[in-house]
């Protein structure tokens, strides 16, 4: 079965969510991957959205973080303040699943500005829930498409901290969670190296070369000693993903590629 690099990215990210884990989900790519996990390998994954739904099981992907579909399919809907206070800060979230505009080699995230804060080249939407998700979730997964513009040597602004300056930086900052444990892109999977906590490539998606990854990374990306090849998406995974996207497009009146 043929598949796109975007489909490979979503499938590879979905496989990282263990069945039964409690996942705080960002809108967009994380939400798509988390719901694919729920529809395939991890039917009992618990999805929490910052707008208030806990245990959401949407039949179609939400366009906004507060779509009614999330409330209707949730186990319970609480206030946004309760989400952040009791459920996230209270230590009940296993995985924070985040997107990003830019990341660096330590998994720090920028969603605020490109350029100077007061004279920005590009003004991004801002922090949203990410800084505290990155801080307090027991672990963090990051999903984004890879390019030299998004994987940068130095972030103009650290919105949400990953492994800070590397090493035991997180511990010194007093952050409760373990921080990012994986970055999943359309080309590869990266994981933090022991000791340094610098992200290195641990798996290449089928057909992707090291040169492609190097060209699409703004720092001198390194490769783990034993780089695996990601298993290609199975027919079941691809079928579930394509059905989800088709249902979503139909519900929101979009073209299939937009979902």
């Amino acid at each position, binding site marked *: 079965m043929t598949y796109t690099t975007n489909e490979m990215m979503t499938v590879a990210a979905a496989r990282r969510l263990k069945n039964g884990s409690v996942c705080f989900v960002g*809108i967009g790519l994380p939400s798509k991957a988390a719901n694919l996990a729920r529809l395939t390998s991890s039917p009992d994954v618990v999805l929490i959205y*910052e*707008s*208030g*739904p806990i245990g959401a099981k949407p039949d179609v992907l939400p*366009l*906004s*973080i*507060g*779509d*009614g579909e*999330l*409330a209707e399919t949730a186990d319970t*809907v609480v*206030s*946004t*303040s309760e*989400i*952040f*206070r009791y459920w*996230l*800060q209270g230590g009940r979230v296993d995985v924070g699943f985040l997107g990003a505009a830019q990341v660096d080699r330590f998994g*720090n995230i920028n969603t*605020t500005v490109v350029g100077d*804060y007061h*004279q*920005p080249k590009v*003004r991004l*939407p*801002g*922090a*949203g*829930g*990410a*800084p*505290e998700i990155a*801080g*307090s979730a027991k672990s963090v997964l990051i999903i984004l498409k890879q390019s030299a513009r998004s994987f940068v040597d130095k972030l103009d*602004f*650290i*919105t*949400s*901290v990953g492994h*800070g300056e590397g090493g035991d*930086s*997180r511990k010194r*900052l*007093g*952050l*409760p969670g373990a921080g990012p444990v994986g970055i999943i892109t359309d080309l590869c999977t990266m994981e933090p190296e022991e000791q340094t906590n610098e992200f290195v490539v641990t798996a290449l998606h089928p057909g992707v070369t090291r040169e492609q990854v190097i060209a699409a990374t703004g720092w001198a990306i390194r490769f783990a000693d034993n780089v695996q090849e990601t298993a290609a998406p199975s027919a079941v995974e691809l079928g579930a993903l394509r059905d989800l996207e088709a249902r979503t497009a139909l519900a*929101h*009146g979009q073209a299939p590629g937009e979902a």
Partner: protein
Amino acid sequence: MADIISLHDAVKQFVSDGDTVALEGFTHLIPTAAGHEIIRQGKKDLTLVRMTPDLVYDQLIGAGCARKLIFSWGGNPGVGSLHRLRDAVEKQWPQALEIEEHSHADLANAYVAGASGLPFAVLRAYAGSDLPKVNPLIKTVTCPFTGEVLAAVPSVRPDVTVIHAQKADRKGNVLLWGILGVQKEAALAAKRCIVTVEEIVDDLQAPMNACVLPTWALSAVCHVPGGAHPSYAHGYTERDNRFYQAWDPIARDRETFTAWINEYIHGTANFSEFQAKLARASEAK
């Protein structure tokens, strides 16, 4: 006790130039009609607060009603940037806009603190983030019991909060449900609170633990069906995803934006006229 009055009268009576105003809504129950009425009445120098400023704040900023924005995520959800917000920040059009930027957890806690009558909120946040470097109001406090250093942020206590809800009864008690975001906290943090509702009924028939805002905690209740458009009111209206997309080209350019405001806001007497005009325009397409 909340008076049940027109939205025109509520904005006239309870929103003043220079006020700190929160029009809250976490993609659901966004009080768009009230934002339009604030523009119609030409309110000035407002400090706008909202966790997720979107189209209605783009309109208020572009129409020159705001001098400051306090927020944690600003954008047109699923579409892109808020062009009027960017133009105000980057090019001071139609006037300079000061921004004060937080995270969601911070502002959610700040509303809770405001509703609780406290001067500040405490939370575990911001270690390693650059946000405190650009927002001097994000400070730290040391726990007197454990010594842990935590983030401290000022509470949000708006002069006026405006929210949209599903139902009110004839005394002005309000029932809301679905995704509530920080609606209750924002309402109780404010000195005055205006609520627009989909319908007014004899009996709310509220389940025991439902979110009910009692009339004596509110200033005014206004009957404005569909007043959250293009957002939605769960059980009454659907989110108008097309309008969010259509807003992008309107807001991108100062001339098309100004023409839209003149035609659709200043060119209509109230929200139901606005809705009728919008419906005629979309039928003509």
